[in-house]
């Protein structure tokens, strides 16, 4: 039982609890704040997997920008800030069944294929390697993502502005 495994257990437990709270809480703002815990846990997982650059980007983009956007969305749609009982539709049990089936199939197949495979850490993957890979192997997808971001920005402004 290494230190990494202990850390992973704690982080995974916190993440699982927070993720369930995101989809079950009766308070919209609290759901957004539980989402922060899940996203921070994902960043911690990246650190455990020796992917520091992705972890930093996760914190910057998700916790820094996306959650703030969600909070803006909550406020602009004037959701009641307090507790609302009426956030779930009437398919809750069916949705739970579907989610359990998805989980069962995924865990079953993953366990079939990857049981006992250990991650061997050789050299840490540095930010320089990530940058080289983006700007050499994946340079065309990178440019396409840039154009997509621009299109999404313009599209969001066009949709949201009042005229």
């Amino acid at each position, binding site marked *: 039982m290494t230190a990494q495994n202990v850390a992973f257990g704690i982080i995974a437990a916190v993440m699982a609890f927070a993720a369930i709270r995101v989809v079950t809480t009766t308070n919209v703002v609290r759901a957004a704040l539980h989402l922060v815990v899940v996203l921070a846990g994902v960043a911690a997982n*990246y650190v455990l997997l020796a992917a520091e650059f992705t972890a930093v980007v996760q914190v910057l983009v998700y916790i820094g920008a996306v959650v703030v956007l969600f909070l803006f969305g909550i406020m602009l749609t004037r959701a009641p800030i307090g507790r609302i009982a009426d956030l779930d539709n009437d398919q809750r049990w069916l949705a739970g069944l579907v989610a359990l089936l998805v989980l069962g199939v*995924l865990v079953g197949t993953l366990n079939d294929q990857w049981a006992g495979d250990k991650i061997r850490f050789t050299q840490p*993957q540095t930010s320089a*390697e990530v940058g080289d890979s983006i700007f050499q192997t994946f340079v065309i997808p990178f440019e396409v993502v840039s154009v997509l971001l621009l299109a999404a920005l313009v599209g969001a402004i066009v949709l949201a502005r009042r005229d």
Partner: protein
Amino acid sequence: MYLNQFLFLAAFLFAVGVYGVLARKNGVLVLMSIELILNAVNINLVAFGTFNHTVAGQVFALFVIAIAAAEVGVGLAIVLLIYRNKRSIDLTEMDSLKG
């Protein structure tokens, strides 16, 4: 560390996100559940990248993060527009296409 522990955590996050998308009727909460699903995918990508000793997993995760940010921007703009037109973001009331 086993590869499977990360894959199982990601599978759990994915299942929770699927439940959220199906069971929530507030538009913003559905978008939050989609974020859970996308993060589950990212954990898988980075875990397999480290497992196979390649940075391609991280690069793909970065692309997914960028596209998720764009998706949230446009998604929230659409939710805002629905709110402005209908005075509500209750997705069960969006049934004007129902015969």
